[in-house]
């Protein structure tokens, strides 16, 4: 019985909330496009754009992918693992990036 109830379980979140999240995502995209024409130095630009993209990814995962409403154990299973693996790749990228940009003979 409980299984059947979960099958037609109310999916948390209202149309209004999803619309609001969508509007935020579009607004953040607009800010990113605006920033692209601000003639910032590449590192500041990269950090700003990545920061905004991480916020957008967070919104998508939390609301659209429903992670906010799942059991927290699922979040702990997915997010740290992904961050660790991406972090390991990035950890190799930054020293090499520095070497290439500042220590080129």
């Amino acid at each position: 019985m409980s299984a059947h109830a979960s099958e037609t379980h109310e999916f948390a979140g209202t149309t209004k909330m999803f619309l609001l999240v969508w509007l935020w995502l579009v607004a953040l995209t607009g800010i990113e496009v605006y920033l692209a024409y601000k003639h910032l130095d590449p590192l500041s630009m990269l950090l700003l754009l990545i920061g905004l993209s991480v916020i957008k990814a967070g919104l998508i995962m939390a609301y659209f992918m429903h992670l906010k409403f799942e059991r927290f154990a699922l979040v702990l299973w997915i997010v740290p693992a992904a961050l660790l693996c991406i972090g390991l790749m990035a950890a190799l990228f930054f020293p090499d990036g520095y070497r290439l940009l500042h220590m080129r003979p």
Partner: protein
Amino acid sequence: MSEAKDVALESPWSGGGSPFAIGSKKLGMWLFLLSDTLTFSALILAYTYSRVSNPDWPKPFPFSPAIIFSTIMTVVLLFSSFTMVMAVAAGHRGNRRAVVWNLIFTMLGGIAFIVLHMTEWMHLIAEGVRPWSNPWGSPQFGATFFGLTGMHMTHVAVGVVYLGIIAIGFGRGKFSAEDVEVSGLYWHFVDLVWMFIFPMVYLMSVKY
């Protein structure tokens, strides 16, 4: 089926099979998405690494058409994610008609994205960009650009087919609300990846 689901949803302290309280399909999709995250991270880092290591990296994206196109593509993809979440919510309410229509709108969003992206590719190809050369600078640009965006476009195309199958199956009563939700996870992930490709590839290489 209901018995297996009961075990999965029970509390782990009372002998439940899953500490995450989700079905195996959803768990499997999350695992796949985790591995796909690494694939895309590697491709994005390869692009960025090539860019940093080549001072003559081209900046081939003028406001019109490239940035206008890619911004519209971003909004289209975001909107398809919205219709997707509407489909999932309708699925849980048991509203078959709403699920199918929202899935159709989501697929149309995906198809619009592919058409716009292919048009944008054709602009670059017409200007002489190839995977091994381009008229402006480092030849690695083509390989990394087409590799990364092509991989993403493939995901969108596969997603459109996947959603089509889910729409037909759910419309005929063969698939459950969980199946719609699992396909939704895939679609939102494809959207999420674009949220990184768009700024890192397009906005970082704007031609002023």
